């Protein structure tokens, strides 16, 4: 178990006190043997502790993906800053396939220019060469963008390092808990509190444009669904009907919200709310619990959890009037909370195995092969990265809620351990 890096750059803390102080430690708990070796050379010769070490951040991103193995800095044989400085034969002897070099130059007091180049060590071919100009505050994002470009160039998969996650953190103990809805960078850095309450907050769901988050709040001691705009902080209560108001999910076009409501007798069913007209359409009608809706990519169907056949199982229903749901999961007695991969080739969900709750995937291309990806006892709330390469989920570590990630093929596992409180219900935002 390698403790790779601690994330909490001083630069990430703004003068505003609402920046969450939770600090994540990322541990890769199991890696991929065929990780690509790469050397990431520091962009500046003499490190300034007050300025973000962008090359370090790029290296951390790549290593944390599990797809890359970065050369330890103390093993660097030289510190070239451009292609003409690279002694390729020496680097080849270190068995590095790729080398990333660059410079970071201050332009004004608050502005930097980053030049970076990626080379294939064997062929000497220059694969990337770019210049980025950014403010000091933008350095972190610039680093994630560089990592995205390297990831995509070498692996052919779009990088998701420059994306964001939302999650719920719970601080304090009974009976004085505080619940926070937090948005942070995908690596857990830069946490910002979107909403804080002494009553539970649940089920954050991103709008497809990444501008808003829908969530459930019990602040009035009854559940209501809100949509909150991240930039303005404005929020709108979109559902506070009698009974249950739960499990919001934006349609792919962002115009509708699927959610779970209940009748007076407490029967939970799934509805679709048109956000412009406020028209409400009932989608399921069954005495069992129907909940946890997830939209198909074409916006014409919903995946959902239902215990109409006894235990919870995953179903899919067309939104066309009069449609009947089709059951998708048959293996095991507990399969719930479906999330589809960005290309809808795979379904991630929670399954029960030997009394433990774990993240599983099911192939949707027809074979319906099920693979259990995680090995915890309380692994829930899976959410795909927008590139589909990784699933983030909630786990428990020594009685504490933590976030963890697993590659969609199950081979790379990592854990994000927060220094503060319990962390649950991660939701990965869009590109």
């Amino acid at each position, binding site marked *: 178990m390698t403790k790779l890096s601690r994330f909490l750059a001083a630069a990430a803390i*703004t003068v*505003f006190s*609402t*920046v969450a102080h939770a600090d994540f430690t990322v541990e890769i708990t199991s890696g991929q043997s065929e990780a690509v070796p790469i050397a990431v050379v520091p962009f500046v010769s003499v490190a300034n502790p007050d300025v973000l070490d962008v090359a370090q951040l790029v290296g951390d991103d790549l290593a944390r993906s599990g797809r890359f193995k970065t050369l330890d800095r103390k093993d660097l044989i030289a510190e070239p800053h451009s292609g003409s400085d690279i002694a390729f034969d020496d680097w080849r002897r270190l068995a590095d396939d790729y080398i990333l070099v660059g410079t970071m130059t201050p332009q004004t007091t608050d502005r930097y220019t980053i030049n970076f180049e990626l080379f294939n060590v064997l062929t000497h071919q220059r694969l990337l060469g770019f210049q980025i100009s950014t403010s000091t*505050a933008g350095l972190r994002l610039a680093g994630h963008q560089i990592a995205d470009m390297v990831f995509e160039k070498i692996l052919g998969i779009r990088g998701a390092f420059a994306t964001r996650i939302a999650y719920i953190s719970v601080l304090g103990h*009974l*009976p004085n808990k505080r619940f926070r809805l937090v*948005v942070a960078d995908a690596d857990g850095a*830069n946490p*910002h*509190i*979107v*909403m*804080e*309450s*002494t009553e*539970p907050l*649940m*089920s954050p769901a991103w709008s497809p444009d990444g501008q808003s988050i829908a969530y459930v709040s*019990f*602040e*009035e*001691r009854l*559940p209501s669904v809100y949509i*909150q*705009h*991240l*930039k*303005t*902080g*404005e*929020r709108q209560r979109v559902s506070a009907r009698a*009974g*249950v108001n*739960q*499990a919001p999910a934006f349609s792919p076009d962002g115009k509708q919200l699927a959610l*779970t409501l*209940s009748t*007076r007798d*407490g029967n*939970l069913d799934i509805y679709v709310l048109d956000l412009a007209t406020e028209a409400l359409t009932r989608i399921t009608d069954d005495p069992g*619990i129907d*909940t*946890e809706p997830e939209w198909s990519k074409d916006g014409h169907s919903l995946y959902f*959890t239902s215990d109409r056949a006894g235990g*919870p199982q995953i179903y899919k229903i067309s939104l066309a009037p009069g449609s009947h749901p089709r059951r998708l999961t048959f293996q095991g007695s*507990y399969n*719930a*909370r479906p999330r589809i991969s960005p290309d809808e080739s795979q379904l991630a969900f*929670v399954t*029960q195995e030997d009394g433990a*709750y774990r993240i599983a995937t099911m192939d949707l291309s027809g074979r319906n092969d099920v693979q259990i990806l995680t090995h915890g*006892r*309380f692994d*829930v*709330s899976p959410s795909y990265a927008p590139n589909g390469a990784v699933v983030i989920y909630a786990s*428990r570590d020594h*009685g504490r809620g933590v976030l963890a990630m697993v590659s969609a093929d199950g081979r790379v596992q990592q854990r994000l351990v927060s220094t503060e409180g319990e962390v*649950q*219900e991660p939701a990965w935002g869009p590109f």
Partner: protein
Amino acid sequence: MKRILTIAALCLGAALLAGCPKKPGNFEEGATGSQVPSSSTQSAGGAGGPSTTVTPLGGDQEGVTGGRGGAESAAGKIIYFDFDKSEIKPEYADLISATARDLTSHPTLKIKLEGNTDERGTREYNIGLGERRAQAVRRALLLQGVAEAQITTVSYGAERPAAEGDDETAWSQNRRVELVYLP
């Protein structure tokens, strides 16, 4: 953008403070029987009471589950359930009857049934299970003549555990419906 986001969060925090009802304790407080009217008064406060009383969570569960029942019992306003079940166990018959008598003899009295589950399973499905438990208690009260308008239900699922811990000791205390008289 980061800056704008932060400012928004600040404003919201302020709005929230202003907009939220003050509640010094939490729902355990409302659920304690010390604030439940026994037979003569309806004025006993629910969540708004000044003193914060915490429901005992420890080993004295016999007092809770032992059919002591009755509105005068401090810890007796909680009904516990078996794993993945929403059937009310026979030992709670007295508690249901006493509560129904309170409500039928005081038609303006209102009660909130708060359904809860243990932490296992998915959060939203647990909301469904908690609601199912609250509804089981609601039906039992309706059968004994309580008016529908006197009862509201809410499900907290696994979000408001009464006891913390990843074992059956904690879970058994979390699978519950709390009967909370509304002020």
